[in-house]
Structure formats: structure tokens, C-alpha cells
């Protein structure tokens, strides 16, 4: 299926130049292109100019600085998987990246592109909202840092304004000892869009050996990724003991799943409960050094 719409293509060498081009009417940024080129074929977008960002070296970095992980807009999922820094500081991010599509897509598709797509089933949503990540945005008139929870507005709708460019994200890292787990439900073991997903992170608190902080978020069970604050609270209050029966009862209040071609509302709800339990167990095990390796199949 050919792209019938014709457009111009520019590959700027500097961010300044890129922002100037993107300020033009009907200009669209191109990074990995795995979403954008599909949309062009389907006629969902009809830009006059594609601004290829791949000449901007400063957007290719993965850095650990100031207690946070900075990931540039051009970092691909394959690079996330291969990154030593991520493997050391936030290995669950690599676990997530490995669940995204397949090798040939991950070699091209970027993490930032994923969050710009803002589809309800996106894999990077739950971790970003749970970890209070910031989306770094630059426009001609300056920069903004948008908290992930404010970034996702509705399916395929983000807080980005026309002409603005997402240059990267910043994920604050846990201060203490921490472990996490991402579980993605698909229709089979092969590549699939999430029917539902759960992200759990457990952090040893400075308030004492037994005190722990929990971060929990769900994906694909609402218009945007949802942070499960009631569950987090209940977990933190429970200390070392987790009352799973009580916890599972909180799940329906946290999510708003629908029935669509990928799963029914009932199955999504049921599996969010099952996955919450399994993700908590895995993260807990990882924290104690007894859990499954990151990336292991737990469903």
C-alpha cells in the first residue's frame, strides 16, 4: 500500500534547526517511524514536512545523573535492552522493552515515540506514571517538564502542543534498594499488544527495615495508564504481610477496563488481579534476591 500523500523531508543537524522546522505548519517529527509510516500509508496523517530527528546526536543518550535516568528521544527499545546503565539502575525498563513488538521493530522504534503514540495499550505507560517520570519537551518558546500522569490525556492524545518536540524522559530512580516487575498479558506468547499490563515497584524505605514503598500502575485497562494509589497505600500500610484477598478487591476501583476485540472486561479485571499478585511476588522475590530473573516469563 503506497503512501499517496507527498511531503518534503528534512534531516536537521541541530536541535535549534529542528525546532524551527517543526514550528512550520504541518511539520511532523520522525524518529523510528514504525508508527508514523503506518499512519502515512493509512492516510491518518498528511504532513507537508517530515523532520527526521536522527541527525541529532544529543537525543541519542542514556544517562544516569542527579538521581534520575535520562533517556533521549532517539533511544530505541533495542538500545534500552542493551544499555548497561539501565541494566544496572532500572532493569525492569529492559524487561518492559523486551515485551515491545519484535526485534526488527525494537531496532527502530523509540521509547519516546511509544509514549508519544499514547495508545491505551502502550507498554511504557505504567512504569512512567508509577515512577513519576517527567516528559521533557522543547518548543520555540522554551522547555517544559511534564509529569507522566499529566502527559497522557486520552487515547492518542498527549499534553504536547503543536510545534513542541519531546527531547527525552527523565525517570527518578529509587533511593534505596528496590526491585520491580512488569507483566504483560497477550493472547499468546508471540508479539502482541497488551490485553492488560501491570507494573509494580517495591522500594526499601528509609523509615526502617520493614517499611517499604510500593508503586503500582496498570495499562490497557483504561483510556490512559493508571496509577493504583489505593493499592499502593494498602500495600504500604500492610508492612511485610500482604493480604492478597483484600488487595484484589481494590483492583476494580482502580481500573476501568472495556470489552474489545482483544479481551473482555471480565477477563481484563480478573487478570489484573492475578497479575498484581504475581508481579508483587516477583518484585518481592527480586528485592530479596530470590525472584525470577528480569525478563523471565511469569504468565
Amino acid at each position, binding site marked *: 500500500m503506497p*503512501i499517496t500523500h507527498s511531503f518534503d523531508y528534512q534531516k536537521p543537524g541541530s536541535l535549534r534547526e529542528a525546532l524551527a522546522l517543526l514550528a512550520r505548519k504541518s511539520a511532523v517529527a520522525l524518529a523510528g517511524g514504525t508508527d508514523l509510516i503506518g499512519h502515512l500509508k493509512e492516510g491518518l496523517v498528511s504532513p507537508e514536512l517530515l523532520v527526521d530527528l536522527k541527525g541529532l546526536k544529543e537525543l541519542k543518550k542514556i544517562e544516569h545523573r542527579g538521581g534520575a535516568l535520562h533517556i533521549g528521544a532517539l533511544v530505541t527499545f533495542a538500545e534500552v535492552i542493551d544499555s548497561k546503565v539501565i541494566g544496572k539502575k532500572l532493569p525492569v525498563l529492559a524487561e518492559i522493552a523486551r515485551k515491545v513488538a519484535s526485534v526488527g521493530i525494537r531496532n527502530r522504534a523509540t521509547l519516546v515515540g511509544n509514549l508519544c503514540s499514547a495508545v491505551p495499550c502502550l507498554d511504557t505507560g505504567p512504569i512512567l506514571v508509577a515512577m513519576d517520570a517527567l516528559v521533557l519537551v522543547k518548543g520555540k518558546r522554551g522547555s517544559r517538564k511534564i509529569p507522566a500522569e499529566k502527559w497522557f490525556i486520552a487515547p492518542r492524545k498527549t499534553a504536547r502542543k503543536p510545534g513542541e518536540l519531546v527531547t527525552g524522559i527523565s525517570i527518578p530512580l529509587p533511593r534505596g534498594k528496590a526491585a520491580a516487575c512488569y507483566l504483560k498479558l497477550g*493472547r*499468546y506468547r*508471540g508479539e502482541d*499488544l497488551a490485553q492488560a499490563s501491570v507494573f509494580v515497584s517495591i522500594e526499601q524505605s528509609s523509615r526502617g527495615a520493614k517499611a517499604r514503598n510500593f508503586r503500582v500502575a496498570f495499562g490497557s485497562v483504561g483510556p490512559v495508564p493508571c496509577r493504583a494509589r489505593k493499592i499502593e497505600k494498602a500495600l504500604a500500610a500492610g508492612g511485610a504481610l500482604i493480604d492478597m484477598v483484600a488487595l484484589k478487591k481494590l483492583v476494580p476501583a482502580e481500573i476501568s477496563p472495556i470489552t474489545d*476485540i482483544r479481551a*473482555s472486561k471480565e477477563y481484563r479485571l*480478573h487478570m489484573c488481579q492475578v497479575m498484581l499478585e504475581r508481579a508483587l511476588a516477583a518484585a518481592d522475590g527480586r528485592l530479596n534476591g530470590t525472584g525470577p530473573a528480569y525478563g523471565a516469563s511469569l*504468565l
Partner: protein
Amino acid sequence: MSGHKFIGKSVVRVDGKAKLTGAAAFVDDLEFGPGLLHAVIIESPHAYAKIRKIDFAKALDVEGVVKVVTGKEFPYRFGLYMHDRYVFAQDHVRFVGEQVAAVIARTPAVAKKAAGLVKVEYEVLKPVLDVETALKEDARLIHPELGNYHHVPWFFPKKDTNIAHFRKVRKGDAEQGFREADHVFEDTYTVPRYAHCSIETHGAIGLFDHSRRLTVWAASQSPHTQRHLFAEALAPLGLKHKDIRVIAPSVGGGFGGKAGVSMEILAAALATTVQGSPVKVHWTREQEFYNTYQRQGVVAKMRVGVKNDGTITALEQKLYWDAGAYVEYGANVVNAAGLSASGPYRIPNVHIDSVCVYTNLPPGGPYRGFGYSEFLFGLESHFNEVAKKLGIDPVEFRRKNAICTGDVLNYGGKMNPSGLLECIDKVAREIDWGKKRVSADPRKAIGKGFALFWKAPAMPPNASSTAFLKFNEDGSLNILVSAMEIGQGFLTVMAQIAAEVLSVPPEKIRVETPDTDRNPYEWQTVASHITWGTGNAVKKAAIDAREQILDIVSSALGQPRESLYLDDEQVRSRSDAGFALPLRDFVINGIMMKDGTFRGGPIIGRGMFMPEFASALSDPETSQGGKPNVHYTVGASAIEIEVDRETGKITIPKVVLGVDCGKVLNPDLLKGQVTGGMVQGLATVLYEDMRFDEKGRLLNPNFTDYKIPTALDTPEEIVSIFVEHEQPDGPFGARGVGEHTMIPAAPIIANAIEDALGIRIRSMPITAEKIALAIKDS
């Protein structure tokens, strides 16, 4: 039979190097130069509607547009077994995606753009989307003119209804059989529609040149049948069969989807409107899903009468097939399934109604298994339940009732040689039947499932195959046939058959995909019949060549004819150990006599095979009397699964399939059929299915939401067991086997789930979701 040099050996595939280096050319790889035109099809957005007006003036205005074609140009009905469809919709559209018009342009992009400018006005009608609605007394008729449609004599349409064909089978006395039974068990099972998902989509290029010769290059399982249907459909243009040529390059997967004629008619017909220019029609993945043949859905209602000891006394099967908007091919699936819907069992009293129902969904048609996968899901699930209710082991129940050589078939003929009992025993042993395993994971349950299967080629009684075989100067040879290599390894097996007869190694034999101008007739590559049918033709051609060779050597050199034989590419003599004449010395140039003259000359073998014993003539009320099926291939299959009680997810440590293929011609290729077929079958039961909305629109015409297996979704172990009870009329004893390997997949899974969890699921697919929710509800 021992002593074969090439038969029964895992000969290396003759098409391997071409396919692994990119040298193999598929239809989309062919070059036609700058004159090539591209057609984009305007499709119906409605499942049922009247076409009021088509306005394409704006499309014609676009630079690069050559022509816009609508149904007006081709007001003819055609079809394979029933003439019920059109090149383009005429006054009505009957499914979402039906072709309404075409824009022909210089580039694909221009064609696509201009197609968006064609405006079609419809009067939308209420569609008929399921068999229940279609069978209601006051149902809207999808084909009001059904009564006038031309069809093959073995179809029985009911005019003024939506029933396109009604196959009745009455063997023995079913009511009497139910009276004799100690128990009667009944149930209903449903199977949705499925897509073939060849990785190559359909494509065809037509060229109607200025001498009025029509050539079509197509991704095809049926070059000669396509030629014939093109000739029939376009007869008003005055084309003769000799003027039409179909060239079939490498095919990227078939599974039945590229049999008959579906979108290829568009390339043929459109070519006649732009004489002198080749025109290409290439289906997108979406079109591949909604406008080729689909596997039909079925609702199966069955009753089984059994004695306390497990003997089956009677079976009633009522199969209601959702055949879609056009049934020119799909009705024959209904027919074939109807004749065999008892499964491979000895049942004295059988009552089958197999009903082909028009609906406003895409046309049904052939799919690997041809109706058997569909009815076996219900039948083999139900027999398991029956055995359980009687307290009999399901394998024992099957062994007790399994059909044997010489048993009477549903239509009165005798069962061919059958190693079914041997298959049952070997498969049961391999899966460790009767031994329960307990999962190491307390959340998981382990279960085993067992099922039998059978299938006969569904073909007209006069479906024939032919072969030419030509020797070359160096003693190598080329075989010309028109059956298709669609992945199964057909070319390799044909080379092996000729090699065995002629003592020429397969690597010196070239067999390629056909051109109907050059290659002799073949009906179609469907029905698991070509190893058998075309194999017979090739064997006959090789024998024909061998006889010519021995004749000429005998007459030219005075060797006693009966002493001569072929060995190691030479003519040898049993009476003269020193005699050895290499084939290359004379198979083209002949044998020089003492006076310098020559005898013999180019050796060309010819072979033809027609199943002269087959007949489709039978009593329409009972199906008794004819011999519609040439043979049945039978087998057994078993699986072990591990299922997670919380998630419903299944893993498969082991699956076993045992089949009586008559004679294994190439073990590796046969194993390939088992592995590939089983994985394809497992996907239909575990996650694939086509979903339609309330307006008849297909919701998942892509691999994003129609999931086919990936490398991560294979069973841990697939064991193939081959049993050989030779087919007397098959080449070296072989019979068909290509489809059979996917047929038992659904019931073995369903039965294993029941074994593991005690839950019987009666509708496919049996997704993790369905299992998990069923456990929750139970």
C-alpha cells in the same frame, strides 16, 4: 516394500536453493516494464445493499488514471461448482469488501488516490449475518435467483431459500439405531470462520495483447482450473481456451486459499479492458482477509446412540454451514464434510444433513482440511463425553468403534486399506495414555487429549492429472506437470518418483511450476491428492519413457527385451552382465547402427491418471450408490497440555500424530507436513478466529488482531508416527496426507482441557480467556 533407491528417502528439496537465496520468483517479483498498469478495487462498505449509482468522473480526471471499470462491463455469472458470482457486483453487493469497481492507473499511488474519488450510492439493506437468521421462514433471500443458477449435478440447492446446497446422507436406519441404543447423547458445537494467512497475499497480472491472447500470471494452486474459469467467465469476448494462458510462479503458501478462482478473475477481466498493457492486481493484507475464500463457520448439532458396552448404534449430525455471500466453491466443502461427518467410525446407522447456507459474510471456500477440521471438533469432543458418561476409556471407546478395512462407508462403498488401529495404539503408547502427571506448579493442571481423524480428497470424479517427461542430452531430465509446489515439497517428490523408475538421481531432474501453454493438464492442487494423482501420472510417464528406452535398445542392439532393466542411469541386461549402456549416450541422439544411421531419438514420456472408479452419481435423498471419494487417509492424534488455572494459558509439552499415509515417499517432507499442519491447527483452537461486527464488517483483518503462531508458540515436542498400509492405486502405495495433519488439533485440545479441568468447552476458539472465565464460573 524395500529395495527402493529414492522412494522413502529424505531427498533434499529440489527447490531449496532457489527459495533460500531469494532466487525463487513470486508473482509480485515478476517485472513487466514501464507499461505495467495497476488496479485498485473499490469495495462495498456494506454487507448487503443495492447499488444505486456509481460516479467515477472525478477519478477519471486524475492524471495517470487510464480507466475505471464497473460491473457493467462484465454482466456474467460464473463459478467453480455453481455459477453464483460475478467479476464485479452487479445490482447488489452481498458482503463487506465485495468488488464494485476498479481504477486502473499508471502507478499504484495514483490508482489508490483516484479510487478514493469514486462515489458509489447504495441503498442499504438489512444483512443476514448468521445461519439461524438465514434459515428463518421469512428470511431475506440473498440470491433470489438461486433456482436458475447452473451447478454441478451433485449439488441440491433449495430455490426461494438461502440454502445453496443440502447434502443428505442416510445409511441404515438411524431411528432404529437410536431405539437399539442404551443411551442417546446429544450436543451442539460451534466453529467460527478462519483465514488461511499465507504469508504471500494474492496477486495476479493480466495481459490481453493485441493478438487477443490473454496471459495471466497468478499466485495460484489451480492454473488449469483458472484458465478454464477465465475462458468460461469471459466467453462472451470470444476467447478460446487455447488463447488463454496461466503462468504460475512460486507460490508463497496456499492452504486452499489460492485454489479455484478468487481475485485472479479481476486481473483477467481488467486486462481485456486495457488491451496491450499488463495490469496488476495485488491484494493488501486486509483484502487477503476479507476478499478471498474464508474457512466457513459451522454449527453442528449431533445425537449419538450407544450401547452400554460402548458400541455406537446410530449417529445423527446436522451441520449448518455459514457459507457466505457466494458459495461456488464453499458448497463443495459442505458436500465433502456431509459425506464423511461420521468420522472414521464403524456406525451402522447414519443420518447426516450438511446444509450450505448463504449469509452476507465473505465467501467461504477451501481451507486445508476442507470441512473435516470443523465437524471433527464437535464429533471428537462429543465422543469423548460419551465415553466418559459410559465410564469407558476414550481411547478404548475409539478402538472399539474405529473403522477397518472393508467396512461399509456412509455412501455404501468399502473402506480402503486402513491402519487406524495401529495408529491408535502407537499414538496412545507415545503419549503414555492412561498415566496421569501432576504439575510441579500447584496453579497448573495437566491433561491429555486423544482424537481420531480421517479425510478423503474432495474432488470431482473426473479430476485428472497428466505429466510429460523429457530427457536431455546428458541424461538429465525435465518433468512438466501442472500441479503446484505450494511448500509441501511436491516438486521433490515428483523427482523422486521419476528417479525411482528411471534410475536417474533426483538432482538430475528438474521439475518446476507450470505454464498452462507448455505443461499438461492438472485439475487443481487441493484435496491432498497430487502426491497420489499427479504422482501416478508422473510414474506412468516415467514408465512410458522407460519402455521406449528398453524398446529401442532391444530393437537397435538385439538385446532380449525381457532381460533389459535400468540401473544407475544405464540400461543393463540380466542375461548379459557386461552390457551397460548409459542413458546419456542415446536418449536424445539415438543409437547409431553399423551403417551410420540412427535408431530411437529424443525420449519423451507421457502419463495420465484418471480415477476411473470414482462416481458422484447417487441418490440425492440418501447419498447411496456412487463412489464420490477415492480413498480415506486415517490416523490418530494425542496431546499433553499444562494449563494455568488462573490465567487459562496453555503450554504443550508434547503432541503426537500418527497417520496411515499408505507409503512414506519422503520422511522429512512428511514430518514437515505434520509439524506445520499441527501448529496451524493448534492456532485455530487456541487463539485464531475472525470477528465480525453487527454490520458484517471484519474487525481483525490484520496480524495485529488475527494472531497466527510465532516461533514462540510451538509445542515443545511434536512426534510424527507413520503407518504404512499401502494404497493399491497410489504411487508406490502412497495416499494423500497434506491436510490431515491439522484436522485433529481442535478436539485433542478440547479433550485435554476437559481431562485437566473437567470443563467441556463447545465453541472454538478455546482461548486462555475462555478457559480462565470458565474456571472462575465453575
